[in-house]
């Protein structure tokens, strides 16, 4: 399978001198299309830093990142924003939908930014995630689980190679949390997406193809 994201020798330091903190201490990591990967670890273990670097929101102190065949490390801020928009879908803890847009309009906004008209594709996504009936509702009218489904649809809409999910189940009860994680696993396999999910909840890893534990700035694959 084709590797879509590769990270080599990633080191990230914050501050300098006495206050220097090394959040990531040398990470080598690859994801291929169609893989669903979980990263677990306690707060402060560096998993959020890992995700921001994988998503191109900040640059590592050392090491290289390649998305597809494109080296990501040396892009300018503007190019990285464009690359994020095209290649990466984000699913965040909560509130990652625009509060004043209806479900359908979340997709229209992306269309406007892309200068494309793909409402049919949006509707198809909503159908497949079983939330088509909610398309005229505002985010505040949805339950937490429904919101995360919309967020998943929104992340898939741009057809990104990679989806990064930051604690997507944090605001959900267990039943809905399991449902959302299963859905992510299904989308990864069906649509051949590389999905990386960061979570602190070990129960969520059972559907992953691989699970890593982030500990003191290093990634260890779980057996």
């Amino acid at each position, binding site marked *: 399978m084709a590797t879509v994201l590769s990270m080599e020798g990633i080191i990230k330091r914050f501050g300098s001198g006495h206050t220097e903190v090394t959040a990531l201490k040398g990470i080598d990591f690859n994801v291929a299309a169609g893989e669903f990967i979980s990263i677990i670890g306690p*707060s402060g273990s560096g*998993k*959020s*830093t890992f*995700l*921001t670097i994988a*998503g191109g*929101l*900040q640059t590592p102190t050392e090491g290289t990142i390649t998305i597809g065949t494109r080296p990501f490390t040396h892009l300018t801020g*503007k190019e990285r*924003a*464009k*690359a*994020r*928009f*095209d290649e*990466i*879908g*984000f699913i*965040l*803890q909560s*509130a*990652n939908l*625009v*509060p*004043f*847009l209806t479900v359908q*309009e979340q997709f*229209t*906004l992306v269309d*406007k*930014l892309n200068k494309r008209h793909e409402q049919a594709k949006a509707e198809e996504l909503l159908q497949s995630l079983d939330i088509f009936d909610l398309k005229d509702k*505002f985010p505040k009218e949805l339950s937490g689980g429904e919101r995360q489904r919309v967020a998943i649809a929104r992340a898939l809409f741009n057809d990104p190679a990679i989806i990064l999910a*930051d*604690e997507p189940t*944090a605001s959900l009860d267990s039943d809905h949390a399991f449902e959302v994680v299963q859905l992510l696993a299904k989308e990864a396999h069906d649509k051949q997406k590389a999905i990386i999910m960061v979570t*602190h909840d070990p129960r969520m890893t059972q559907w992953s193809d691989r699970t890593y534990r982030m500990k003191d700035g290093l990634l260890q694959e779980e057996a």
Partner: protein
Amino acid sequence: MYLAWKEIRYAKLRYSLIIGIMLLVAYVVFMLSGLANGLSDGHKKAVSDWGASSIILSEDSNKVASASILTQGDLDRISAKEKAAVGLTASAIAHAGTDEKTNLSVFGAEADSFVVPKVIGGRLYQATNEVIVSENLLDDDYQLGDQITLGSDDTTFTIVGVTKATTYSVVPVLYLDLDAYAQLKYGQQAYTDDSQKPITLIATKSAASAVSLDNKDETTKLTTLSMDDFIQNLPGYAAERLTLNAMVYFLFIVVAAVVGIFLYVMTLQKTSLFGILKAQGVATSYLVRSIIGQSLIVSIVGVALAYLLSFLTSLVLPAAMPFTVDLIQWSLYGVILIVVSMVGGLFSIRTVTKVDPITAIGGE
């Protein structure tokens, strides 16, 4: 613009509030400018409608018409394109035999001179006991054909003509013959000839710089003022305009501050959303355009409503309130208000550009 519109539609109350404030401020701006124009018209309209380019007064008058005394003979000391001798005095009109008086400005001039306005009813005066009055005097129960007296003078005049409504010194206007003016202001006197008869000023159609005066060997020195200069020196005129216009200019600053602060607070509330949108790769320039777009929409809607409201208000204002609608000036002020509120929106841009998309991730 998509985001800008959708947010306004979603947060109707919030945006109605800013549009409401914008509307009120723009309304005050338009009303103040209407009042400023109305008041300045009240002071000067009869004179500015003469179509004269320059005014000649006695130098001692210090540019104030009511302090200037000339004689008809002074006309010969002036070389200019068209000259008109004008007498001017403040007086009060009353129906003959009654005591109820109304203030007005009395102009004396030859009936055929260019300063006398066209009559819209009746005819011009032909004798010294005939006068024409401006239409706004008719509101005080005067009519064509009425017998009237002026001030303390015993002469009974007849209103033989009516001109369009106009004012000078914020009161209606009456025109009469120069001889009648001399008698009204200075009483019955014996003049050796016409050139001795008193007048107040001379209006010409030549530019002030093109007027040449003969000031040698004369007891009364003459001075030439441009029409603008003359109007600026009308008592109270400049001070009133300056005050009202200063209020209007101050309101421009108020608009920038109000719209700026409103949008800034709303932007602060949305920083986490901006973080998320940026993380998803939405360009900062799109978010900035969206904020500028919102201030544009808010100000255009507010100004347009105020424009309409001010115009409707002007239709129902009492006649006693001097108010002149100048749509071109209102449009200019409207454009300034829109530009100024966009400047207010610029305050928020720094906040948007400063939002770091990293804040979107790992908020546990």
